[in-house]
């Protein structure tokens, strides 16, 4: 009797685990750059270094302008998956730089539309948005 109960629990557990979202599903964000930017793909570690202020120049030597979002699903997903931080840890990271005189946080915009406009208007810009909001004014990078 006890063995049957154990079996039932194992089956329920296996069903639960296999039905859980695996994290390999389609990302909730897309990294975008200006249409004129020759870069078409980028490693995730490079994206991370750019958004943490470690890498500040494009391959042609021009400066990178980073646009963060303040909140939202794309923001949370991007920060957790690419930067490996919680949104609050990211906020603290940049405040530490700001108040210790060692750096200044990137621009923070309100929503996807603001990021698309900023990236479309700035040849050196990079940002992230929800994939369903990508339009022809910006270019999505392939992440490796």
């Amino acid at each position, binding site marked *: 009797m006890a063995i049957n109960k154990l079996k039932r629990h194992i089956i329920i557990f296996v069903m639960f685990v296999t039905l859980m979202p695996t994290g390999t599903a389609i990302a909730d964000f897309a990294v975008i750059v200006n249409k004129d930017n020759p870069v078409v793909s980028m490693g995730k570690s490079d994206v991370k270094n750019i958004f943490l202020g470690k890498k500040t120049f494009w391959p042609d030597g021009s400066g990178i302008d980073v646009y963060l979002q303040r909140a939202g699903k794309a923001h949370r997903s991007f920060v957790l998956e690419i930067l490996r931080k919680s949104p609050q840890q990211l906020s603290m990271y940049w405040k530490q730089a700001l108040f*210790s005189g060692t750096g200044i946080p990137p621009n923070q915009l309100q929503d996807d539309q603001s990021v698309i406009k900023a990236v479309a208007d700035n040849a050196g810009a990079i940002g992230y948005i929800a994939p369903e909001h990508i339009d022809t004014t910006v270019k999505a990078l392939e992440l490796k």
Partner: protein
Amino acid sequence: MKLSRGIFCTFLFVLISLQETPTCLAFQIGNHLSLNGYLSQGYIESSGNNFFGDSLDGSFEINEFALTTNYIANNQLRLGLQLLSRDLGEEGNNEILIDWAVADYHWQDWLGLRLGKVKLPIGLYNQGRDTDFLRPMVFLPQSIYDENKRSLLVAATGGSIYGNFFLGNGGYLDYQAYYGKVDFREDSGQAQGIRYLVSNISRMKNLGSVSDFDSENRYVCGGSLLYSPPLDALRFGVSYFTGKTDFDFRVGGRKGEASGTNKDFIVLSVEYAQPDWKIAFEYSEFTGDRKALGIDIPDGRSQGAYVQLCYHLYDELVLSALYDIFYADKNDHSGSKYADQGQPDYLGWRKDFGLGIRWNITNQLIFKAEHHWVDGASLQLPIFNPQGVEEHWNYFVLKTSFNF
């Protein structure tokens, strides 16, 4: 820099009240100029010993107010300034000082230059030590971030170079190196420590009273390396600091001299930070070589270490636990040197176990509460307790902070 505290605080309050939804970059003016700041106020109460001011009776002398401005000239040049008013017991008294002021030229990612008054990279957290909301607990671990040494370790007027190297699949390496001079305040823990030492020697030798005390730092220099391996969330650090300070005074009407060479302050650091929890461990050694009135003080080489664990119960609620240990002499953990001089042996160590809670009410507003149980009275505790120090004592702190 003689702005009155009242004007400064009023200015901050008006700035904050002007904004409806404060954000980190609440006062960005165009793409070039930004204005930020923070305010914090705490309450500290202890039993057994005073800990920074008259904490035995409960003290509100624990606060920081800062106003920060940055002007971005272009992608490579930034001018920045932070004014800071702080109070911690007898130190600070809310006089407004320049905390840091830099011209920062970021030539390449691997090389940048900061000139002006720069914050010193010691351990993982020294550069952010005055900003309450960056810390999980109210005080940074005192074994390494001793508040009595703050004025010596926090910032120097001079310059620094910095940068980072990408190591391919091996992660990346950040470095900083600096050289400069420290502007000592007479109420700083460092100056108080030497004054206390000189007064004791003078009393033993019947030399008379000590007056006209003046401090002059000759130099500080050092640097840090921070390695982030490919494994996310892990980083290793090593930092080095050294410096020399001279002190002039009059004792019994005659001129007296003292010096303090803070040699070979080394901090080794490890931090592992996941989105919902973090553990940090740091170890340090420090040699204080003091001379006063012709007497060489055998300070020895101190030793400190701590481990701190932070766990996010929710996004808004963080629990922290700290075990922090300091020995005044790494070769004398039992304090026998003090006992031989007729002093309590527990001046030779300080072991602090603390538990704290941090409530992130909003992104801008936080509240902290914590309690610490301490064994030992090292780290200059006698200065605040002329009546004598107790071995076992406690303190608790409440603090709230706002930033914009």
